[in-house]
């Protein structure tokens, strides 16, 4: 028994450890604790009488107004919803969807162009070939510079949230759909460029290496060696990001452009909480439909 206990103790002592992970978890726990203790998020005084009255009013007014003070009537509610849909809902839903699609295609195009330049296996003096003559230091320095510059640019693009990009672009370009499209495209180009670089780095080196050994140019390798191998995995990422784009496209309307978010904030400003809830629900259904389409496409792409 004691031999067994000693064996257990030995196994415990020699268990694989990850000090960085352990300390990270502790540090995050400390940040959590400090934010609750010092951040002023206490729930005391959360439901004052005034708040309760406000909440009661809110819960009363989110009932569709045709049935607000009467019994629920399916027909009346349906007519009310049809009116809202005809007035703004349908158009706003289409605009939201269109913004997300236009943005993700732009982002994917920019990300695909940046991806090989950000990949360490491609932006180097002699891509995909091991051994051979050592490259000249000028060539090595030039490629290191290009890779680092592209990677840094992508970091800048994705570090600024879409909403902040849209806020700045709206002021610069004036009101049209462009600020929404560009804001989503810029942020997601940063993310897709990074993910695309990982796709290039994780693609097997056999095919592009063989092409290079046969004397193919860098551009030929990219189109013949990398695109066919990396395209499916790349599209998985694009569709993951498109799901986020649909959510964000709805929200960016809050800045005053005509997607669902605009009508949500507009209904709030007019104290029409029932209309607000209608637009929120329409947005949620669009997001769920987008997730389903994306899951379907991703499965089709993944199937080999």
């Amino acid at each position, binding site marked *: 028994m004691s031999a067994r206990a000693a064996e257990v103790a030995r196994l415990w002592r020699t268990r694989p450890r990850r000090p960085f992970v352990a300390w990270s978890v502790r540090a995050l726990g400390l940040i959590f604790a400090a*934010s609750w203790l010092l951040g002023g998020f206490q729930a005391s005084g959360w439901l004052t009488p005034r708040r309760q009255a406000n909440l009661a009013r809110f819960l009363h007014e989110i009932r569709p107004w045709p049935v607000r003070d009467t019994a629920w009537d399916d027909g009346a509610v349906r007519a009310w919803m049809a009116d809202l849909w005809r007035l703004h809902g349908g158009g706003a839903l289409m605009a939201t969807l269109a*913004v997300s699609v236009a943005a993700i295609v732009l982002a994917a195009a920019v990300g695909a162009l940046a991806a090989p330049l950000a990949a360490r296996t491609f932006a180097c003096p002699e891509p995909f070939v091991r051994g051979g003559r050592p490259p000249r230091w000028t060539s090595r320095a030039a490629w290191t510079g290009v890779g680092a510059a592209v990677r840094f640019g992508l970091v800048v693009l994705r570090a600024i949230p879409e909403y*902040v990009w849209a806020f700045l672009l709206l002021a610069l370009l004036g009101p049209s759909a462009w600020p929404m499209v560009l804001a989503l495209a810029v942020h997601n180009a940063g993310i897709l460029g990074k993910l695309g670089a990982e796709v290039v780095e994780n693609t097997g080196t056999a095919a592009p290496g063989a092409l290079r050994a046969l004397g193919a140019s860098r551009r030929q390798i990219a189109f013949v060696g990398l695109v066919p191998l990396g395209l499916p995995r790349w599209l998985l990422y694009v569709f993951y990001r498109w799901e986020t784009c649909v959510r964000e496209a709805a929200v960016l309307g809050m800045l005053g452009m005509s997607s669902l978010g605009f009508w949500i904030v507009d209904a709030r400003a007019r104290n029409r909480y029932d209309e607000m809830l209608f637009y929120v629900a329409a947005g949620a259904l669009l997001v769920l439909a987008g997730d389903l389409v994306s899951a379907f496409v991703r499965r089709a792409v993944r199937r080999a």
Partner: protein
Amino acid sequence: MRPERRFGATGSLGASVGVLVLGLAAAWASGRVLDLRAGDLAPGAGGWQLAGDFFGRALRPALAFEGAYDGGRLGVVLQAGRAAVTTVAFAAAAVSLSLVGGLVMGFLGSSAWWPGRRAAAVTVPVRLLAAAMRSVHELIWAVLLLAAFGTDRLVAVLAIAIPYAGTLAKVFAEMIDEAPRDAAGALAAAGASPLQGFAVGLLPRAVPDMTAYAFYRFECALRSAAVLGFFGFPTLGYYLSASFENLHYGEVWTYLYALFVLVLAVDAWSGRLRREVTR
């Protein structure tokens, strides 16, 4: 073996090309729906003026306040630091709350947690609830909760925590279900109860991935918390929008750089953690 599989491609090239063509067609149709014109991309005269003023300050962010308010020589820098700390506090409170909800709902929504066949009676409703929570964006949750409860710091925390809990529930459930079942199976064969097999055999295989993902969500929450400032909460977005509207572009850049440094630092932290965990 099909040729594209031989070189380590993952997935179907034919389907991918089809999707690509459909995507381009959809983008063209979207451009028509939105009436996007290349001509509208050029700012007007006022826009050029503003762009010049704004980008002219990119390399000269403000250190002291540009307006009448005197906060000392490093007033804006100190303000940006304070706002960054507040942003971290909002993000941390929200993520810790969403972790509680995400873990509970993730366990309840994973099929591995439920031995036996009637799991769907619980997993399906839990997954639907999680889908509903995450299908509404945190800023829209903020608008809803602000309308219901009025302005309170807890509203911002809840607005981030609700959709994040829905996302964490989905991802955690998938990680638990996709963790290798070998150890849990061996324990079950040796006579362990399902709970023992889950806690000792299955969960340890999923915990590293779950930890890495929680850190990634913290990074996302920082961005969300910063943006919630546009709704009046004292995070970076609040000061950024106020300075922009006062045409104090130097200050805007100071806040942008603060946000940039904050996101970059947490990005590097969670990236290193992810590499250690997947190694």
